[in-house]
């Protein structure tokens, strides 16, 4: 049986002793090859959780295993096998798209970098602007380049923070299809944090509902919708955010 993509045990983060924890005792195990989503309002603990999974943030308590590696002791081995994309972290805007991808091909020690970049450019429709500085791209183009960067090392685990934020519906749909295809082809696991409920319903097989840094509910989108007696995930989200309902 393959190791879980992510295994969090009692994961806790407290920034100041006087403040309540940003994340409080998360326990979950995401199987390899699955797509999960973190869902919650602002300040629910999604970004803090992702930062701990990436090793950017040291937990106050608990443990994270990523692809079988303990992030406290062996994070670089895990980082080589995973990747991350967020619209809130930019790529150097004076470098061209091709130069940016070459930088990350080197940082991730990607074999046959030129071929891999050409392959990604073809797949993500970047060919027409590979030689354009990243700072001169539209929001949709930047998102595609950021996703190309996140796929450069063929990650076994992909962490995505708001992958389709600020994209028009057509481009957003295109990105979601691409992510579904990538997971189907490679068996990679995807964990995404998103405020787009339709996106989560479509992509995620399992949703962790966060509130106040805790998992307040979880399940597949269909299960959650059924348990809360709602029509869609957005209504479930509102019930949980406003504390108005609980699964039967």
């Amino acid at each position, binding site marked *: 049986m393959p190791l879980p993509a992510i295994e969090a045990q009692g994961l806790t983060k407290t920034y100041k002793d006087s403040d309540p924890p940003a994340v409080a005792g998360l326990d979950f195990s995401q199987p390899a090859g699955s797509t999960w989503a973190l869902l919650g309002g602002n300040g629910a603990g999604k970004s803090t959780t992702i930062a701990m999974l990436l090793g950017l*943030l040291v937990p106050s308590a608990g443990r994270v295993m990523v692809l079988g590696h303990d992030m406290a002791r062996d994070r*670089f081995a895990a980082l080589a096998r995973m990747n991350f994309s967020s619209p809130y*972290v*930019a790529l*150097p805007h004076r470098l061209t798209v091709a*130069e940016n991808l*070459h930088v*990350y091909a080197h*940082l991730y*020690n990607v074999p046959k970098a030129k071929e891999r970049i050409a392959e990604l450019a073809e797949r993500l429709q970047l060919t027409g602007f590979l030689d354009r500085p990243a700072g001169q791209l539209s929001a949709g183009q930047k998102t595609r380049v950021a996703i190309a960067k996140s796929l450069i090392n063929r990650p076994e685990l992909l962490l995505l923070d708001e992958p389709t934020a600020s994209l028009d519906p057509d481009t957003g749909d295109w990105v979601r299809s691409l992510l579904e295809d990538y997971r189907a082809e490679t068996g990679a696991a995807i964990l995404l944090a998103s405020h787009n409920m339709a996106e989560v319903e479509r992509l995620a097989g399992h949703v962790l509902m966060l509130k106040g840094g805790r998992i307040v509910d979880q399940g597949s989108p269909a299960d959650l919708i059924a348990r809360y007696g709602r029509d869609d995930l957005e209504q479930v989200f509102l019930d949980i955010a406003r504390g108005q309902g609980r699964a039967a």
Partner: protein
Amino acid sequence: MSGAARRVWGLMYRHLALYRRSWPRVLELMYWPVLQMLVWGFVTAWLAGAQNNTASVTAGVLLGGVLLWEVTLRSQMGFAISFLEEIWSRNLGHIFVAPLRPHELVAGLVAMSILRTAIGVGPAVLLAFLLYGFGIWTLGPALVLYFTALMAMGWAVALGVTALILRHGAGAEALAWGVLFGLAPFSAVFYPVSVLPGWLQPVSLAIPASHVFEGMRAALLEGRIAWDHLAYAFGLDLIWLGLAAWLFMAQFQAARVRGALLNIGE
């Protein structure tokens, strides 16, 4: 190429690509060293004219001081500003989630510092020879050691500055430009340590550059290599680098605890 070497090259490639498409950045590297050389060169020419018997010695001591101090400055700035480039482009988040180890990050910044120093100081060295007839190579083969000792001091200071940027964010950026200027009066660049008041001399002797400049004067005035000063310079460099590396790693870890790595530029 090994994985580590390739990651270091990746970081260098990112900066080289930046310079390749931005001639003003390349020009800026040369601008201050050349300007310093012009100003000090004419001052030296005037002083040498007033003291004919010691003209070449005066010129050598002053111009050698200018050039070697520029090596220290450019080395420190080359390191610290390459790190700041990652903050300015909001790219640090991607860098820190790549499998780039902290020592590889430092190695990449050191490599960029060497390149930036060579590009920055090279034209000033040429200018000193063409306009004022001073060849820094008259210091002999020990010149390589002087350069190395001064660059190592620059890296130590830059590591310390980078650690403070990790601790205090963009608010500490100004240190990247100014911190070494504060050390210049105590580094015996243009005058010997003995000129300083007695209570200040131990401070000066704890700075690696002071020993390099004492060594430079011994070479130019007495025609000998001051091995004792070189040994002190490298010994102090090791201590400075060790302390700076400890501070950098402590602040890097503290930034991971505080969650400052993603929003360090804000």
